[in-house]
């Protein structure tokens, strides 16, 4: 047991170890300052009439304050609302499917008689997780290309007309949702399988002796014991509801203009505005995303702390 005075002494005196540890942490700290904290202060350009040319710092200091003008422009354009709708809408669907499907599959795969086969299936389903979105975009193209794609060949084979997929917004919500589930399947299952394998087998033994069926075991033992993890994953995902996977929404629809209304999320809009040099609007969009994202994450974390204090971030 530390005595009170001993602790106090430890806390007040700066030791050589502290100097050494500070030096050890210095490179990473510098990295954090350059790549995380400087950009945070850079957010002020959302309130300025920022010019692209010249040095960044002098521009930030010398450009004129414009108040909320950038935000006015942003929200007066229809884009902002469409994009926020897409971001929140897709994320809500992704959250539900991203939990329901992996949980169900994790429950199923643990029941296979052959554990080895389960491992093989799991490995194969993990493959898409390791592919970059550029590669996935090439894959989708090989299926959906108008004149050479496999889907259209199949359709014409059946006597139907080929569809110009990259021009038809109505199909894309399904495609995007499918691709997201497809890519995240292996990753999602890992977390839930780890929870399932961690459950004490004596619960099931007791249940079997009491005559519980497999279905009842899943319903009354496995799922209740997974509840905490599921709730956690849910809340964490809700906390990131203003952020989307840029690759999914930029690469998979191949930046097709016809698909703007169904496939553009905040991240894609910011990128497009940045590249078309409408910096004021881009910085306003980025500002909205950062602030709203921060609020939702903090809110989610606050909820996590109420549910399970050990899992909260701080």
């Amino acid at each position, binding site marked *: 047991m530390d005595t009170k005075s001993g602790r106090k002494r430890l806390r007040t005196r700066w030791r*050589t*170890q*502290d100097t*050494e*540890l500070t030096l*050890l*942490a210095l*490179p*990473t*700290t510098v*990295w954090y300052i*350059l790549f*995380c904290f*400087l*950009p*945070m*202060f*850079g957010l002020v350009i959302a309130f300025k009439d920022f010019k692209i040319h010249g*040095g*960044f710092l002098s521009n930030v200091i010398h450009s004129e304050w414009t108040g909320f003008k950038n935000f006015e422009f942003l929200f007066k354009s229809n884009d902002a609302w469409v994009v926020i709708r897409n971001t929140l809408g897709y994320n809500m669907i992704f959250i539900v499917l991203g939990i329901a499907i992996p949980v169900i599959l994790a429950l199923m*795969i643990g*029941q296979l*008689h052959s554990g080895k086969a389960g491992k093989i*299936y799991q*490995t*194969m389903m993990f*493959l*898409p997780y*390791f*592919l*970059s979105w*550029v*590669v996935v*975009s*090439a*894959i989708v193209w*090989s*299926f959906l290309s108008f*004149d*050479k794609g496999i889907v259209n*060949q199949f359709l014409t084979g059946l006597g139907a007309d080929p569809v110009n997929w990259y021009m038809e917004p109505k199909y894309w919500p399904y495609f995007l949702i499918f691709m997201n589930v497809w890519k995240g399947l292996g990753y999602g299952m890992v*977390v839930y399988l*780890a929870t399932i394998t961690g459950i004490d087998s004596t619960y099931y033994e007791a249940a*079997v002796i009491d005559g519980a069926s*497999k279905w009842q075991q899943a319903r009354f033992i496995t799922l209740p014991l997974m509840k905490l993890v599921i709730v956690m*994953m849910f809340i*964490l995902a809700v906390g990131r509801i203003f952020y989307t996977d*840029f690759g999914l929404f930029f690469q998979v629809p*191949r930046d097709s203009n016809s698909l703007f209304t169904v496939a553009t999320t905040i991240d894609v809009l*910011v990128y497009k505005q*940045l590249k078309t040099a409408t910096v004021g609007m*881009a910085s306003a969009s*980025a500002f909205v*995303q*950062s602030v709203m*994202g*921060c609020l939702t994450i*903090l809110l989610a974390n606050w909820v996590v702390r109420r549910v399970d204090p050990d*899992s909260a*971030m701080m």
Partner: protein
Amino acid sequence: MKTAARYETGLDKFNRIGTVTNWGFHLVFILLALLCLIPVLVVLSISLTGEESIRNDGYSLFPKAFSGEAYQYIAQQGQMITRALGVSVLVTALGTVLGVVLTTSMGYVLSRPNYKLKGLLTWIVFIPMVFNGGLVSSYYINSNMLGLKDTVWALILPLAVSSFNVIICKTFFRSTIPDALIESAEIDGAGQLRIYCSIVLPISLPVLATIGLFLCFAYWNDWFQSMLYIDNQNLYSLQALLNSLMSNVDALARNASSMGISYAELVATMPKESARMAVAIVIVIPVAIAYPFFQKYFISGLTIGAVKG
């Protein structure tokens, strides 16, 4: 083997799903596994199909006219593909090493319970997890102020550290390295750098492997940094090359002059469709071969992260 033997005990055997359900489940998983595998095989098949056949019949799951011309072509193009491969390998190797050093050193410092600035550094790591400057100001700071535009460092530095990885490291060090071990080294007069290098790192190989793999795959698969910061085509990584080929396949004829024929001639004769997919295959092959072996390190990282996010 042991687990298999245990599985056969009476109760386990009794408490199984029925044979029919078992086969039903197998069928579901076989379909899902194929759904994940076949799209990649389609790309492979296209890369192995003759250009003539693609032009006439389109893409297909099995090559109708088998041909290696795409690979031959990108091998002849040499410079472009080897350069891109070189950039990818260099960025992946340098980035992984740098990232592991930066991440584990911070993780170690945060895991020392009596360190005076622990509170401050914890905040420095924590705040970026909830708040960030967004794309626009990051872009201007990286390209304008730090001068990373069109340099290899733009592909390496911004991805080197993530707070998520730092916390995985901290949690690992905290839970596996006994304080007594480090204290005894301190009493023996070892400095913190020495303790970190010759005690902490050697006994933490699992977490090094996990972080290293996360970084390795992240760098290999990154195309976004290239799209933002790289205009000079000589600095294109494989991903950036494929990205540019997806929108303009004629870019493959960039080296026409070095091959002694005119650009137009090369564009007309080169195997476009299959060569593009061949580049995709060059990207996918190392990943597809490597990940089954390293899966367990990934899984351990993902589960630590999920437990303590």
